[in-house]
């Protein structure tokens, strides 16, 4: 009916717009997360980590690398994508997006694509940085990249939803700070969930981030809290939930149209 062709010019325009925003704010968007993650390596990996015994045959400093990359990936994807779509709502420039001949799919592609790209670049920079601190071996590079890309996309989609839902800058910050960061810390960033008592191990399984970190860590060291296939499956489930939510948002105009 109305989808004769995909408006690729629009997707590219949004993507480029968002990427140039990233470059414009390179200190905040690239340098600062890299520095803060490096601090984790210094403190937990080198300083404290040297006094911690190996976890399941992996040196502690190396063990936390996948968890830290995930921590950064989740918070940065969410924050970047949420800010990307919230800012035009806040300033009012969203009028142009709504009046343009673009579909919800194309808008999401542009914003989420840019946010995910940035997160993936960040993830790779942090991975490279971690090599400076700890010896690393990646058992399954393909799966490592797959988890990295899927997680970046999923949480950029999630951030996009937050950016549409948020009614102020405070709400924009609440989800990453009060939900994602705690879930990541409790999801096995710094420890294997196997060290927990059985009851808490079960509770942990309700934390979606456990699956992401576990799968990602498996691609490095072949050790996992849950089966890597379950991790992959759960990641894809989150991805689908986010996609359906975004489809619904644009169908109803929720928080976008009056």
């Amino acid at each position, binding site marked *: *009916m*109305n*989808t*004769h062709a995909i*408006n690729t*010019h*629009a997707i*590219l*325009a*949004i993507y*480029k*717009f968002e990427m*140039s*925003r990233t470059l*414009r704010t390179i200190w905040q968007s690239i340098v600062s997360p890299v520095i803060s993650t490096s601090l984790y390596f210094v403190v937990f990996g080198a300083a404290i980590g040297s006094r911690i015994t190996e976890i399941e045959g992996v040196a502690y400093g190396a063990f936390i690398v996948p968890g830290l990359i995930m921590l950064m990936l989740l918070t940065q994807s969410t924050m970047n994508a949420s800010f990307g779509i919230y800012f*035009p709502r806040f*300033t*009012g*420039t969203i*009028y*142009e*997006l*709504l*009046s*343009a*001949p*673009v*579909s919800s799919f194309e808008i999401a592609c542009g914003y989420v694509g840019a946010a995910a790209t940035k997160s993936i670049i960040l993830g790779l920079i942090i991975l490279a940085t971690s090599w400076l601190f700890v010896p690393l071996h990646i058992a399954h590079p393909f799966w490592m990249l797959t988890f990295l890309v899927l997680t970046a996309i999923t949480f950029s989609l999630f951030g996009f939803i937050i950016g549409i839902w948020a009614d102020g800058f405070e709400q924009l910050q609440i989800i990453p700070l009060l939900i994602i960061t705690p879930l990541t810390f409790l999801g096995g960033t710094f420890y294997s969930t196997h060290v927990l008592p059985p009851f808490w191990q079960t509770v942990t399984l309700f934390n979606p981030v456990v699956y992401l970190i576990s799968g990602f860590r498996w691609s490095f060291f072949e050790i996992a809290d849950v089966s890597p296939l379950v991790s992959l499956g759960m990641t894809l489930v989150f991805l689908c939930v986010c996609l359906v939510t975004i489809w619904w948002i644009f169908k109803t*105009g929720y928080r976008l*149209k*009056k």
Partner: protein
Amino acid sequence: MEPGLARARTAAYMPVAAPLLLREKSMTSIISINGLSKTYASGFQALKSINLDIKRGEIFALLGPNGAGKTTLIGVICGIVNPTAGTVTVDGHDIAGDYRAARSLIGLVPQELTTDAFETVWATVSFSRGLFGKPKNPAYIEKILKDLSLWDKKDNKIMTLSGGMKRRVLIAKALSHEPQVLFLDEPTAGVDVELRKDMWQVVRDLRASGVTIILTTHYIEEAEDMADRIGVISKGEIILVENKAELMRKLGKKQLTLHLQKPLDAVPAELAAHNLALADDGNELVFTYDTNAERTGVTALLSDLARLNIRFRDLQTTQSSLEDIFIGLVTDRPAASAGVAP
């Protein structure tokens, strides 16, 4: 005005097939609005079953007091507001079912100066063109920026520009994808005289190239200068659509107020032939006349006053503002006269 601003603008906007299209379709309407209603979640009914046709190639001025529904109506047509009921087609394309085709024909200059503050002028205008699905065309963007006297600001961040310049940027963005229909929502609110002149020149050139223009304004002079037809909207209803000439004749009433040296109890019988009324406890004599009439009767009135030795300290003339006219059009007669009576 910047030198060369008005030069050779028309040709650039002229689509290749414009003359043919104009001839074939000049009598058809480019926008058809049928039974359009909008009720907001709060229960406020912003539009009440609007029916309106905009003719291809015309300049249509939509007038109405604040809150009348002008911006909502534009919002629905452009896809920013979801209608509650009714249909709108743009050049035959339904705005919901065939939104891609409909929206690519439309350029919108919003009322608020909403811009991407950190972007450069060039980047933001190029972004708009891409968003509307058009391939890059730096020569065309350059043309628009030059026409709008923005060329020397093309690398400036928008936040460094003045309000008037920002308004030009919004117009450049709206024109970036070569629209067939241009919406200008209060384009001259808070804009200085110079820019207004520039802007109207651009609008005239666009019209000459076959672009249909719909504008909202508070200023009657603007509607008078620019529009072919005028629609008045009030409380969500289109209460009048008329050719400008006809409307101007109706709206051309003017009042001459004479501040008398000595108050009068009543209008003297000798002056009964003039359309006079007393105001301010008899201290003012108000003469209502039609500026478009061959004889306004002002000279006769003044000589009659001199003959009767009615002297006045001061005099002033006032023309009904659009706001007054809206009130006159939308308020019930008893209420309207109650407002005038002392």
